[in-house]
């Protein structure tokens, strides 16, 4: 997605602040998690890793800008996050990558579900959801995890 996809909504536009804050929190988590996971992934995955981290920074910045434009103070990043399991090697790093993409997909799908039929916001959220689903599938493929896809990315 491009940063431009997150253009400021018109003044007083109703946006789903709660859902966007949750999406922003998921993006903070993803940016942090890729920093950790990167330390345990082999060099050959550096490109895939950098691409994923850059995508999440862009989504994070976009969500922040939307919240600021709506007058809602964006949730800040935590200093650190608890991972579901200790990340100690490439396999656990890949599992963490799939988890953060799965969580990001859920957060952005919720933005779509709760937003008014406003083109810019829904398209930006769809791009974020789609990107997360694609990255999750690629990480599963890298890890050799079958199935590679889920039928409804982001669905609860």
């Amino acid at each position, binding site marked *: 997605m491009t940063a431009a996809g997150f253009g400021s909504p018109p003044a007083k536009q109703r946006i789903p602040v709660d859902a966007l804050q949750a999406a922003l929190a998921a993006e903070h988590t993803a940016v942090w998690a890729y920093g950790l996971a990167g330390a345990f992934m082999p060099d050959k995955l550096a490109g895939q890793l950098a691409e994923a981290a850059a995508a999440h920074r862009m989504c994070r910045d976009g969500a922040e800008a939307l919240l600021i434009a709506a007058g809602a103070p964006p949730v800040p990043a935590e200093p650190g996050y608890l991972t579901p399991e200790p990340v100690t090697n490439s396999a656990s790093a890949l599992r963490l990558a799939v988890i953060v993409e799965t969580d990001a997909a859920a957060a952005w*799908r919720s933005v779509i*579900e709760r937003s008014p*039929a406003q083109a810019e916001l829904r*398209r930006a959220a769809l791009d974020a959801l789609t990107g997360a689903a694609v990255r999750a599938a690629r990480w599963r493929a890298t890890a050799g995890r079958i199935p590679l*896809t*889920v039928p409804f*990315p982001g669905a609860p």
Partner: protein
Amino acid sequence: MPDSRPSRRQVLTAAAAASTLLAAGSAALAGCTSSAPTAPEQPDLLQRPAQRAEADAALAQAVALGHPALAAAATALAADRQAHAAALRAELHRVRPSQSPASSTPPRAPAAAPADQAAARDALAAAVRAAQDEAASLVVPLPGYRAALLASVAACCASHAAVLP
């Protein structure tokens, strides 16, 4: 109702509960009022995505049978597209219970897979791209629950395109 169940991180705060409930309420009401997504005589916007999902599932099954090298990807695609068809049919049926939840079109002839493996792979890639585009185009105009369903369909199709062998 899947649209009324908040995910674990969507804890409602008192401050935002009003706007959230408003959004959830309008989504829930969409199928129960006279201002349903479509007027009675117009085809429901989910009809075409549902038919496309069924056609894609049939194509993927045929490819899986004819091309062992594509069998794993095609079988997974067939399963996901079948799940899309079922979810879309369920939503169509919810809004118009008079219509059968099954396909309203006559059963189509079994899909034929291209004999050439590269052509079969290209056919799958074209199918998921077209499905992604169609579903994505409906994410903006539809009410919340349907928009989210189509968004997941679009994202799933994009993920298949990304990992096709």
